[in-house]
């Protein structure tokens, strides 16, 4: 059985003088949720457009379930379901007509098409609106319909580009739930997102792309482990210390950030900070209300790998 769902090798794409994608190479395991993160203009969407056959790369190759996207695009695209970032449903067609059209161009059997359309519309809470033209749909409804469309051919790989961006909480939850259950059925999901927490919740593996190059690929847990300098100790006192600047003088503390009514003390060895923290509280006449050690957040990992680690820590 094929173990690799997507294989991207040395992908390059240049727009004028700008290298949007620069020798990008990675593999996505079959049955995994792969997160693709990066700041604006990092090359996320261009990479996804190359993978889904919209953009022709200047160099490199793409294999989708073993099919070459460049040599046999139609064969490769049959295996995909795609929700592009800048995409829309046909506003002049009803939700039902949109789905039937997708069923036709993917050559889905008519009876199967009818069944899937009904099931997916029910699942995404759009069945009652199936005969309405989609021009009157809200952004969340359109996004849900785009997902229904992407599922019409029961794809092996689902490409989602910012699927929950700008949506209400209910739509976000619905889409995340769908991603989880789709993945639980053994399908592969390629998720491009800005939402780091979403990636953290959903992804088995995350790639961070910056300035067209892959900065790192690993599991969310390993990524957090990999930057020990962002381990921290979150402490809350019964009142604000009058000499809070002294916190960064404590043994092992590299920097301090104020977060609401508590302080985050960054240290590579947070356990060793605790005794000196007790001394500090006693000297200042403070009571420690709570102390927690923290792994770096994925947001901190992200900023670190895109070279903006200084923005993680707001020195007091």
């Amino acid at each position: 059985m094929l173990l690799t769902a997507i294989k991207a090798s040395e992908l390059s794409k240049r727009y004028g003088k700008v290298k949007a994608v620069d020798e990008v190479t990675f593999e996505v395991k079959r049955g995994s949720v792969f997160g693709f993160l990066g700041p604006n203009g990092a090359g996320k969407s261009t990479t996804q457009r190359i993978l889904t056959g919209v953009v022709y790369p200047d160099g490199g190759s793409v294999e989708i379930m073993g099919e070459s996207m460049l040599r046999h695009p139609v064969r490769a695209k049959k295996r995909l379901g795609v929700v592009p970032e800048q995409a829309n449903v046909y506003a002049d067609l009803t939700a039902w007509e949109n789905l039937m059209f997708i069923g036709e161009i993917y050559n889905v059997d008519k009876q199967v098409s009818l069944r899937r359309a009904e099931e997916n519309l029910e699942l995404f809470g759009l069945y009652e609106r199936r005969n309405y033209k989609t021009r009157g749909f809200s952004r969340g409804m359109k996004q849900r319909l785009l997902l229904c469309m992407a599922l019409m051919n029961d794809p092996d790989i689902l490409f989602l580009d910012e699927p929950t961006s700008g949506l209400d909480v209910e739509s976000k939850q619905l889409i995340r739930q769908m991603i989880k259950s789709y993945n639980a059925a053994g399908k592969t999901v390629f998720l491009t997102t800005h939402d780091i927490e979403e990636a953290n919740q959903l992804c088995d593996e995350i790639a961070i792309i910056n300035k067209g190059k892959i900065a790192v690929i690993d599991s969310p847990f390993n990524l957090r482990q990999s930057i020990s300098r962002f381990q921290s100790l979150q402490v809350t006192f019964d009142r604000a210390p009058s000499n809070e600047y002294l916190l960064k003088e404590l043994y092992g503390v590299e920097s301090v950030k104020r977060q609401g009514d508590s302080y985050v003390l960054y240290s590579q060895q947070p356990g060793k900070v605790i005794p000196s923290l007790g001394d500090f509280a006693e000297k200042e006449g403070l009571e420690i209300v709570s102390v927690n050690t923290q792994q770096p957040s994925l947001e901190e990992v992200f900023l670190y790998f895109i070279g903006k680690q200084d923005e993680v820590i707001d020195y007091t």
Partner: protein
Amino acid sequence: MDGLKEELIASTRRTLAVSRKNARIYYVKPPVIIFGLLFPFVMFLAFAIGRGIEPALLTPRILGVTVLFTASSVGPLIAPWERMMKTYERLLTAPVSLWNIIVGDIISGFLFGLLIALVPLVLGLLFFDAVLISPLLLFFALLLAGLCFSALGSLMSALPTELPANVMMLANLVRFPLLFISGIFIPWEEMPNWVQLLAYLSPLTYAVDLFRWSFGEGNNFQPGVSCILLVLFTALFICWAKWAHQNGIKKMY
């Protein structure tokens, strides 16, 4: 062999699905109604009123104008409209080839042109004493002219823009001069030599010539020659459209 046959059937189904989608969405869009329906009607009035032209002679010329404008009005709208509405990228991610999209667009423009052309044809036969000498030739003439002008429309839609108005402007820039060099407003015999030379480059010349022949008027070319030239123009426009769309996609994405 069976695999090839299956793929051919699947590809035809995709093309027809694209055509059906186009028909549902674009036949009633304002630019199509304005430039595909109202425009030929206005041209007809401008041409016919007060010029003392024998009514029977009007029909083949009006057919020419109608087929040109209607068949070429749907194509230029589809791609830029879909780029503007952000549905084009969705289509590009689907297992449809560029051929499926282009041929699908051409079929929808062709059918629209054919359907609307029936209106002046029926009116001409019923109210303008037009006498149809060769229905078979007229059928082929409508078929070839419709395909040719629809392919021309698809070629123009390759302009890499998200603004349908830009393509419609280009379309009119191409279609208007064709009216004046193709023997519709100015009879072939009255054209200066240099305009006659240009007329050879216009597919409308051969379409109108075939329509005139069908209605028993004198003609300038043998019908077989006109048919072959229309086929060649169609092939040229389709191949050019494929090349231009491919380049347009590279520029836009």
